[in-house]
């Protein structure tokens, strides 16, 4: 009898080890603890034992029964645990659900960046109308009618003397008409020129104009200011180069180049192998402009500059076609 008990224990251990799910577990339970199970069968043999062995074997059997019950319970718990784990199985390598987010247009971003640099230098932002009187676009800026200097400013007209401004320099005049120096302002905005559209031309684009007028503004201030701006905009290592040029509303005038941000001045396709990129027009305010706005002669000096926002954004982001800005392809917009 004792042997049978031991064999049963061993057999149970083996059976239990093979259990992998609830169904098999139930089979094992029925086999050992069921009404016609092994334990029950062994219990049935008890009355036939002698009175000395009966209590000993009986105790053994009860212990075995308890053991089996406990083991089955443990196994059951284990199985149910693993079952629930299986239910919650998540493939965590699947892509996350991205929260929706929008982006500002790269022109707006670039404009904001330019504005912020100048704001940090004490400039204020002033805007002006896009539909302008001819006077503000030309005469007040010392660009006479029928003069070749107008060639650079082909213009859309609405009426005889009403046009779409071809540069933001118009706002210089509007500020000075209303304000006494000192003036320290930038004037961002849209401008229009009847240019055929291609990869580098657009009939509508954005400019930022800058103006400082005070008692003692110097050309060296213009250099310092724009050098600081370009370093903040394009990186500390950016170099600037001032070349004499001609704008009717500034004298002396300069074109401002920066060392090519692509090749760092070594020469590449973007800078036409010169190592330099032209990004700003600048100069000292022409006294004739002060005259046009009615400032007393000789009382003030000023510096002015202007830049194309698309050009700067194209350089900064490596965009090679200006039309991308106005096509608004969502695949483009989402990159900035």
């Amino acid at each position, binding site marked *: 009898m004792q042997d049978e008990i031991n064999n049963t224990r061993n057999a149970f251990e083996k059976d239990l080890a093979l259990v992998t799910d609830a169904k098999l577990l139930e089979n094992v339970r029925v086999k050992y603890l069921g009404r016609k199970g092994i334990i029950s069968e062994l219990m049935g043999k008890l009355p036939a034992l002698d009175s000395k062995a009966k209590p000993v074997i009986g105790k053994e059997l009860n212990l075995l029964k308890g053991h089996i019950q406990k083991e089955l319970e443990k196994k059951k718990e284990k199985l149910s645990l693993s079952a629930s784990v299986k239910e919650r199985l998540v493939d965590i390598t699947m*892509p996350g659900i*991205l929260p*929706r*987010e*929008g*982006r*500002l247009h790269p022109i*707006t971003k670039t404009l904001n960046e330019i504005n912020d640099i100048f704001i940090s230098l*004490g*400039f*204020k*932002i002033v*805007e002006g*109308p*896009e*539909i302008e009187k001819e006077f503000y676009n030309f005469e007040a800026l010392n660009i006479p009618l*029928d003069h*070749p*200097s107008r060639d650079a400013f082909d213009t*859309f*007209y*609405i009426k005889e003397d009403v046009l*779409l401004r071809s540069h933001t320099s118009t706002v210089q005049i509007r500020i000075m008409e209303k304000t006494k120096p*000192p*003036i*320290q302002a930038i004037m961002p905005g849209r401008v*229009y020129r009847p*240019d055929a559209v291609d990869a580098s031309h657009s*009939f*509508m684009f954005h400019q930022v104009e800058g103006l*400082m007028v*005070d008692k003692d503004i110097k*050309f*060296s*201030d213009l*250099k*310092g200011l724009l*050098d600081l701006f370009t370093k903040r905009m394009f990186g500390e290592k950016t170099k600037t*180069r*001032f*070349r*004499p*040029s*001609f704008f*009717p509303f500034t*004298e*002396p005038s300069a*074109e401002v180049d920066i060392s090519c941000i692509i090749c760092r001045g070594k020469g590449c396709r973007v800078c036409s192998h010169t190592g330099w990129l032209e990004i700003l027009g600048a100069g000292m305010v*022409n006294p004739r402009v002060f005259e046009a706005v009615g400032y007393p002669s000789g009382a003030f*000096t000023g*510096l002015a500059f202007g830049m194309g926002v698309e050009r700067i954004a194209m350089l900064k982001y490596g965009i090679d076609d200006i039309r991308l*800005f*106005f*096509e*608004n*392809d*969502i*695949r483009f*917009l*989402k990159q900035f």
Partner: protein
Amino acid sequence: MKVSYSWLKDYVDTKIDPKKIAHLLTMAGVNVASCENVGGDYIFELEITANRPDCLSVLGVARELAALLGKSLKVPKDLRDGKKQKAQSKKQKPSFNITLNNPELCFRYTARIIKDVEVGPSPDWLKNRIISVGLRPVNNIVDITNFVLFETGQPLHAFDLDRIKEGIIIRRAASDEKIITIDNIPRTMTNDTLVIADGSEPIAIAGVMGGLKTEVSNMTKNILLESAFFDPISVRRTSRALGIASESSYRFERKINNGMVVKASERACELITEIAKGEKGEFFDVGKKTSYSKNINLSIKKTNSLLGVTIKKNEAIKILKALGFSVSGKNNFLKIAVPGFREDVKNDINVIEEIARIYGYERIPVTIPRIVGNTTIKEPISLFQEKLSHALIRLGLNEIITYALINRNKIKGLDVPPDQIVAIKNPLSIDQEIMRPTLLPGMLETISYNFNRRAKQLSLFEIGKTYKEKGNSYVEEPVLSIGLAGIKRDNWRSHKQGYDFFDIKGVLEKLLDESGLKGVVFKKGSIPGFNKNITSIVEQNGDIVGHLGEVSKAECGKFDIEKDVFYAEIYITKLFKKISLSKKYASFGRYPSIVRDVSMVMDKSVTSQELENIIKEIGKDLVKDISLADCYKGKQIPENKRALLYRIEYRSDEKTLEDSEVDRLHSDIKTTLSEKLHISFR
């Protein structure tokens, strides 16, 4: 303009590397766009600014170079100053008549007769010079006039003298008068065109192009060499009107130097007698003889303080003299006489630029200007616009920027009053005919563009101006446009549900809430271009601040959009006048609130707004919040009805509400709803 290295060296002694010369010129404002080795010589491609016609000549560029190198300029003897031109003052009767009818358009006209020329090919040196500036050699006479034009900047023209009938008249063309120019194209002129005519017809368009009839050919024996000074504006207008841009018109437009008119003629005459073996004949000179001159006083102190440098007086004098200015002066003032070829120099600022240019911009130090304290940095409305765009990107919308000029057809059907439309007089294409009165076309264009490129989810906004003519003025108004189209989400978990009206309404509600605007009403409305059943006008205090809705199928069809588009436009200026951007803390109440649901069945014609108004009216300030929790139109609900589940939050600011109080109020609300709107409860 093209200039060759070897030609420059005729006037400046230098052995400096051409690349270095290119750099020096560029850094002095004579921009060298390229410098290329062509057959052993170097060709500089120059970009001359509009103020420097003197540099539209090899001699002018050489003068700049000489000044930069500290060398002297070697001027050919015929072109030197001080050489008196023998005026044609012999008592004999002139063989030829020159009549200047319009001295306001032709300031000076000179002509030289040269007889018995041998027209033929030019010598090689001359051909090479002509080729180096990008022209094609023609014959010795024409080549010489071109050579002198490039050398001096003074345009010249040679006529076949024997083909001129009865002298020369400089006059306005009759209207519709015709001429065939040397390029063999018939041209029709107007009364504004100045022509050189003989007794019977025009033989040249003054300053622009000669006529075919009097062209110098191999048969030509005697020539008339013209050297004149035409009005820049007249030449510019004629050149633009006829669409002819020539080397001559380019220079006349920018104004030539009257001091060179006779000298250039003399120089060409000498070359013609030498190369084409002609015989120098009579010379005629009609009109103004004086050339530009100007005396300017320059303060060295002002120069230095404007530039932020310390340039010594002697250095300034040296620079100016090298550029051809005469300088005298004492102490810190210079008396400067401007030469005739520098009419661009009119005042001391111009002189200061000359000094700075040659001194070198790169030698000017770098300083930081005195910063002024601005009390306002941005206009409040600009700040508000920024706030709106930041709210919108937070809500997941992408900003777009579209053209402000559009095709007129794009607003057909939007009922914009024609007298409000701002039209462009000179558009390049029909796509730039008018300025947009609404941002809708730009939005639809963008949506169409993206759908055509397989975009599925589009949520876009633009903040831009609209343009309208009102009376005699123009109104530019900032407007916000929002467009939602396609499916709401495009990811592996959800990709079916499309946008609907309540999505765009929600965006607006959020924005208006951010703006701190209270009492906004969305009224049912009708807007051209929108689906009339799904259109709403946004009102506050009786003022319209925007509109929204589903864009009509017809409108979408114009842009080839098949999917639904939901669009809103907010008039920023109007909205801005009403908002308050300052935030104030609102207490969320010390006493607990009680929430009651009310499930209602009502006619479809009853609006949510009406119902909420009643709840507010009855509930007074005890109703703190009303929210729509559910909406169903299922099998249990009759066809013409709908069921709404509202959640009402009751709270008092003074005490803890008793259940019984809320029950009474809630039941009053239900009674009124049922009486006034025939609502039943479930």
